[in-house]
């Protein structure tokens, strides 16, 4: 693209979609990094920080691509630090509070499985940049699924207390899983252009994998009619959680505008 070329509808939807992918990863990475130094066992503190690092790294790749698409001097940091909550396109699941270790683990598991099946499609998509970012990310996500599913099983089938805590976590988070598969306007458009499949397509695989792990964890299946959320994070409608995340994350950039750090 040459400078000053206007963004047409198709690049605009690809741009929105790229931001959506980036925002999911940044916000979940940020949430996970809140645990750094506070984990239940040193090895697991390291493991979750590692996942946070992977997610922030993936987010940076997508933001850099979004900056390239927009081509107006935007950078990865202007997207992360200078947009307001209503411009963020992450799903509601990733912005939910950490809660206890069980909720954090379950949130990671539910998201990683989604991300895995989605990226398997994106890896083959017609946009070469997205294909190459997701191809690299899939190696990391494979580990995230393994690690988080092992913990879901261990905690679900551990003690009476851990089982009860996982049940609570499931109850709290299941209201946010349907959004993963309800396409946003930009997802419909890029699916129409053949860049990406409709997210509905991966719903069945996601459900199958999640249910298999929950079964092994002796936890109940997610009910089919748990869509109680009327907000759409993908479309910029967020829970209050995101406002708090951003006011913390963006504080220095907002307090000292225009500085290099």
């Amino acid at each position, binding site marked *: 693209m040459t400078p000053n070329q206007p963004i047409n509808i198709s690049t605009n939807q690809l741009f929105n979609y790229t931001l959506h992918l980036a925002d999911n990863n940044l916000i979940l990475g940020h949430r996970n990094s809140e645990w750094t130094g506070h984990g239940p066992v040193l*090895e697991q503190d390291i493991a979750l920080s590692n996942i946070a690092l992977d997610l922030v790294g993936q987010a940076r790749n997508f933001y850099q691509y979004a900056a390239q698409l927009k081509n107006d001097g935007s950078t990865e940091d202007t997207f992360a630090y200078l947009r307001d909550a209503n411009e963020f396109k992450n799903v509601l699941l990733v912005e939910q509070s950490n809660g206890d270790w069980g909720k954090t683990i379950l949130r990671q598991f539910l998201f990683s499985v989604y991300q895995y099946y989605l990226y398997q499609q994106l890896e083959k998509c017609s946009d070469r940049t997205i294909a190459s970012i997701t191809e690299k990310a899939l190696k990391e996500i494979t580990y995230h699924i393994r690690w988080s599913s092992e913990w879901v099983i261990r*905690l679900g089938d551990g003690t009476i207390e851990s089982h009860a805590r996982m049940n609570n976590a499931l109850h709290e988070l299941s209201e946010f899983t349907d959004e993963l598969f309800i396409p946003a306007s930009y997802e419909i458009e890029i699916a129409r252009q053949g860049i990406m499949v409709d997210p509905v397509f991966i719903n069945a695989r996601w459900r199958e994998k999640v249910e298999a792990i929950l079964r092994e964890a002796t936890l109940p299946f997610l009910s089919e009619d748990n869509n109680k959320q009327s907000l759409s994070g993908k479309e910029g409608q967020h829970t209050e959680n995101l406002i708090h995340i951003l006011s913390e994350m963006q504080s220095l950039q907002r307090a000292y505008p225009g500085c290099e750090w």
Partner: protein
Amino acid sequence: MPLQNHEEIFQKKVDREVRIEPRDWMPDQYRKTLIRQISQHAHSEIVGMLPEGNWITRAPSLRRKATLIAKVQDEAGHGLYLYSAAETLGITRDEMIRQLHVGKAKYSSIFNYPTPSWADMGAIGWLVDGAAIMNQVPLCRASYGPYSRAMIRICKEESFHQRQGFEILLTLSTGSDAQRQMCQDAIDRWWWPSIMMFGPNDDSSPNTAQSMKWKIKRFTNDELRQRFVDICAEQVKILGMNLPDPELKWNQERGHFDFGPINWDEFWNVVNGNGPCNKERLEARVKAHEDGAWVREAAVAYANKRKTDPRQATAPSSSHFEAGQSLLK
């Protein structure tokens, strides 16, 4: 063999720079000194995650955020190597952690100072990690094998952290007035506590002689401190900042920088628990441990179930998961 012969053989090995390994005979006091020193170092890494972890969620760019997460994660890794090294001397990690939580074991006092500004991430890297490296590089040759090997890995990462810290300050030093002020303020706050990291002056450090004879220690506190001051006095010029010591001056005769008197009252006050953040740091560690109890218990319960369960062969991970401390895969 009489004890005296054991001691002679031990000291001869140390003198010939042969590493002492876990199964070798060693004097009780050598073992105790190492347990105290290594566990104190491990605790310092773990408590040290807190003042910096504090800024992960507020790091001002994505690059800084990623490097800060990686750095704090490295510190957890260092804690892990060191706890493992100490365990070879016959103490468990649980016991070391218990000693930390009840206040019996110490950690480096430097982490009892607050990190109110982003520039502190730079100052900690440059000064605190810089002082740590000065102390730690000679430990790569410590007479106890597991300790020296842990230190070799740690030193490599620490020097990387130190360069990152300096680079944070360098960026601030060429930034806006507010950023330059932030930079100087952080240097002002961290300079003296960093100088104190080398411990008491040689004439009031009674254990130094024995530790040097055992080759746990290679240089005295004052030697290392002087080396650190000499290096920083030059590096601060690159930043265009000042070290907060009016008496800092090159001494041609000594070939070193002279520096002002250290406030040892402050040092002992912080060591004895009255620093600005002693209470918060320890509380945060205790809270993490207590909040995590149910997770560790569940992991143990699950591992035990798998041991007696015929499904074990297909269990996801129990084979390499013992007692809630699964290794990072």
